[in-house]
């Protein structure tokens, strides 16, 4: 049971790192990385629960595969958007994106 605690604490740390990165970094690529860290923290959680939980968790591998493919699909479209923004501006800093002001 102690091993499970280590994994869950680790994944929660990764989650915190991801949130920190999302809030503090201003480059769109870095923010995308931060989100990927959160998604992989969730995956680590799922894998750890499947291995150590006291009851039978069927299908954890399937869920992890789903999560990986979802993250890949999202990142593919996101990178395309980032490339389009880079072509139009020459940089992808979200702080300097202020065409619209309320």
């Amino acid at each position, binding site marked *: 049971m102690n091993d499970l605690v280590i994994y869950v604490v680790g994944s929660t740390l990764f989650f915190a790192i991801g949130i920190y990165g999302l809030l503090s970094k201003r480059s769109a690529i870095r923010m995308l990385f931060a989100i990927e860290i959160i998604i992989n923290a969730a995956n680590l*959680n799922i894998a750890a629960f499947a291995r150590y939980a006291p009851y039978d968790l069927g299908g954890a591998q399937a869920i992890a595969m*789903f999560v990986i493919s979802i993250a890949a699909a*999202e990142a593919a479209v996101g990178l395309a958007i980032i490339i*389009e*923004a880079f072509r139009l501006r020459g940089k992808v800093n979200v702080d300097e994106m202020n065409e619209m002001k*309320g």
Partner: protein
Amino acid sequence: MIILIATLAVPAILLPVLASFDWFPRRLSSIVSIVALLISLVELPFILLNGPHGIWYYPTNLVSFDGIAFAFSVTVITVSTMAAVGSLGIMKDETNSAIYFSLILLTTLGMILVSSSTDLIFLLVSWELMTVPTFVLVAMKRKDKRSSEAAMKYFLAAALSAALILFGLSFAYGLTGSTSFSAIASSFASNAHSNPLVYLLTAALLFSGFAVKMAIVPFHFWLPDTLEGAFPQVSAILAAGSKKAGFAAAIRITLALLLVSRFTSYSLSWQVALAVAAAVTITWGNIAALTQKSISRMLAYSSIAQAGYIMIGLAVQGTEGAALGLIGIFLQVLFHGVMKGSAFISLTNIGDSMEDLSGLYRKAPFTAVGLAVSLFSLAGLPPLNGFWGKLYLFLGAVQGSFWWLAAVALANSAIALAYYSYLAKKMFFDEPSTESRKERIEVIAVLAFSTAFIVITGFYPGPIISTFAHLGGLP
């Protein structure tokens, strides 16, 4: 249900492929898409009458088309149809028009599946099916800096929402050993009160993931920029369609996770937390809307405020006002979808700055009347249908003994009426200051439908209310 999915998915997949051949007439893709959406709208009652049965089993039901799914599916298909019809003009000479309409079909299918899924993994996959096409739709204005900025901000917010849902999902899975809502609900019911913190955290992670999509106040930052940068039709789908699908997911979480758990050791109940979020969201949205110089930003902030009104219906679950709150949510979702959708689509005929509104009645009378009806209905004036949704939500809040919440919401309705009347005054009484635009016929068709819908359901809300009351009785 399979037939419904096929009705939307088959054209969505085939159209871009066929449109790459030279012999395929370009106009056909838009017509096929609109027909597919209308057919799927007709199919909905038959699916509901067949009973809420699942189609895929792993290890339990993944999808169940019940009353909640029906109410939300009607809304999102109506909004998507309005947006697709309203896009006929702007997509006429566009080479990518087949892809545009295919993406509308895909995101509509995603919203339907989100509102009918009863399993967290299926919910997550449908969530992505709903979200990923809209990234591309927002970025569809090529070579436009504002559109690319809007798409970037929207992408980062939506990816954060998916990540939060996923992290909540991993905890729910570890705590309960299942991803199906019914299994999670029974596990929450029996175990949550012994160790409330981690269960509450799981529900909060899932809920905040949905709240990014619903644009509840700490998570609303992306909405105004995104809606300003995109095509007005796409903004209509985002503000009136996919936001509502987020609410469908939030209702299921509220009913399956929060309602069954007896978090008795906490003096601050989740109902109060949701009520505070609702009050802050309504107030923030309305106050920010007062100061906007762009019409689409003002509509975006007013849509944040409307999300707050819908939150009232969530906050009263588990109290005396639960049934009224659920009917109020259904009414507000359907009516607000149509009003907000038509208001955004009418911007195609108007332009985006406040100056374009001056003397609109003389430049474009049909658009002006259609927009004015939508705006007054958004404000909740009695003869129009926006009044009924708000009435049921307020009654739910009063019956659930959230007096202060009903008072805050009522005061905000007055603020909202102020800025909507300011727009109406500009349209009808000011001198025209800018060049007049050609009124697009397809936009007028959409506005004619929405005006008729708003007025007719405003005067005769009985059938819709009794249908929704019946649906709300279903689990």
